[in-house]
């Protein structure tokens, strides 16, 4: 069987998206995952056509879930026909894609803003977006007795708020859609939450933390 024609970079360029956007669509189930992984990954004409149709549907403000269900019903021929028949609408924002595009530009030119202060209230912004990054089948419930997170923001502790601003952490704000929170259970009542991906160093420390925490609770028993 001949190899599929496009590399990730070529596919992204032809569809006018970033490679990150392609990976995001694959992760979201909008595009079939390509055969082989790694730098040798190849994408087919079908991938390109689907990618172009996704872009078009996004310009019509369709949510990803709706786009996914539409694409599922369509064969490659039907997608080709749809692409041929439609005229370009006016461009419109597709939030996740815009954010991924900006982050790509930032990474390319090494722009790394510092986030000035740890957010004092979770109510304003951190909470809804944090929730978005979690798997929807496992929402973060307020009944959890302990919630330890590996990155800012921490929810405000109960009791009086600290009066002085906290020192600036060299950590990016959790405003992404590429990261996911993982729940590591310590006991049936205690969990540690970790935002993935983490670098190797932090990973090691998390493992250490889990080991110590589990020992701690075993001791208490």
């Amino acid at each position: 069987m001949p190899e599929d024609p496009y590399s990730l970079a070529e596919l992204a360029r032809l569809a006018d998206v970033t490679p990150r956007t392609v990976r995001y669509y694959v992760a979201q189930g909008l595009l079939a995952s390509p055969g082989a992984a790694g730098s040798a990954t190849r994408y087919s004409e079908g991938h390109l056509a689907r990618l172009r149709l996704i872009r078009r549907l996004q310009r019509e403000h369709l949510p990803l879930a709706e786009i996914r269900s539409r694409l599922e019903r369509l064969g490659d021929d039907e997608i080709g026909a749809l692409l041929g028949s439609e005229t370009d609408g006016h461009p419109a924002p597709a939030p996740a894609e815009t954010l991924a595009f900006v982050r790509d530009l930032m990474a390319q030119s090494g722009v790394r803003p510092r986030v000035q202060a740890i957010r004092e209230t979770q109510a304003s912004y951190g909470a809804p977006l944090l929730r978005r990054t979690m798997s929807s089948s496992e929402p973060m419930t307020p009944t959890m007795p302990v919630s330890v997170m590996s990155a800012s923001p921490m929810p405000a502790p109960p009791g009086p708020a600290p009066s002085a601003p906290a020192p600036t952490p060299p950590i990016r704000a959790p405003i992404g859609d590429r990261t996911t929170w993982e729940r590591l259970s310590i006991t049936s009542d205690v969990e540690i939450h970790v935002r993935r991906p983490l670098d190797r160093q932090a990973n090691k420390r998390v493992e250490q933390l889990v080991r110590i925490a589990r020992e701690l609770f075993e001791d208490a028993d």
Partner: protein
Amino acid sequence: MTTDNQHAGRIELVDPGLTIRPDRRLIRAHGRSERFLLVDVVAPTVAPDPSRRRAPVNLGFVVDRSGSMGGHNKLGLAKQAVLEAVHRLDPEDRFSVVAYDDAIDVIVETAPATPQDRRRASDQLAAVDARGSTNLHGGWLAGCEQVAAGLVADGVNRVLLLTDGLANVGITDEQELGRLVGQLRDRGITTSTFGLGTDFDERLLQTMADAGGGHFYFIGDVAQMRDHITSEVGETLEVVAREVVIELTLPDAIRVEALSPFRVEKRAGMVRVFLGDMVSGQTLSVVLRVTFDYGEVGRELGIGVRVGDRDGAFVRAMPPLDAVTVAWRYADHPDNDVQPRDRDVDRIVARLFAERAKQEAVRLNREGRYEEAGKALDGVRKRVAAYAGSDGELRKVVDELREERPVYAAAMPEMARKQAHYASSLLMRSRSGDGRSQRKA
């Protein structure tokens, strides 16, 4: 999308306008012709209804805090202007604040404009002081990230970039920045720019605002900073149609380009002129240059013109706007030479050429090429004089170019250059002297 539909049902829009006027209607059968076409677009007006809710906005303020902002309390006034602007927002709106020098700090992450978050912004801004150099690109990009993270689908998402100096860290090339800003505009984030004092590069900021679908403001006197920033924020609250586009359908024998400074896209048989966002009742005059190949005497050629926007405001407004067509007819030289002219179009075209020449003269003046600056004005003056006849307004343009020549043909103080450039910029974009959009009377 549901919010769009709710939005559509809620806001009643009335009296959109589209008129097109050619300067002349005959074209040459035996040679190429150049004609001008004036397109006047009037954004629909929001029908008065106190229960109406406007679309939310999402604004990213990006403030220069390089060392030079420390003088004349510039940074203090900038912070104050941002806070006042933020207080005009409602809890449905979002805002964020980034401060940049060579390092970039997110002062307020994207947040809804609740009283609580506005207070927090005030506390956090208080700690920002002036230092370092100017990474305008990085600051802008960080502002985009915040706006992107809170992107609202049916409202204005805009970065407001303030600077008083030359970009000297990160990407500083005008073309490259213009390209990036345009890419973000295609993805729903527009950019407006504010240049403070005499040390910034107005061509860079103008290019960014034009490519970014926003507006450029020159703030010669720091005391005006508040007015300009609140005025821009106020206009984002009144936008009724985002990314307004004039679409022209034309035969192969006709070529169209925009003389007015708006982005143009061409594809087979169609030209699109992107006007950016328009506020309720805003009027915009766009001049197009139309060129024709020769053709048979008596044959007619036409262009179809329609106007649309991302929100469908022009389509939905009452009474409905019809697409308009304009036609030209091929004729012999003698008929062409004696045909009547639409003087209103002539006046606007002459004004546009005069302002373009003045901006070119400012550029040459800055490079010390004084005589060439003077000649840039002479060229346009002679061309306008050739068709001005006894028309009072056209004579005025001619006289003005003659009287102002000595100003441009000798060294100008930088403040005068910036003021001249800005005055021309506003005229070319149908904006009034204080930087605001013009509205229907």
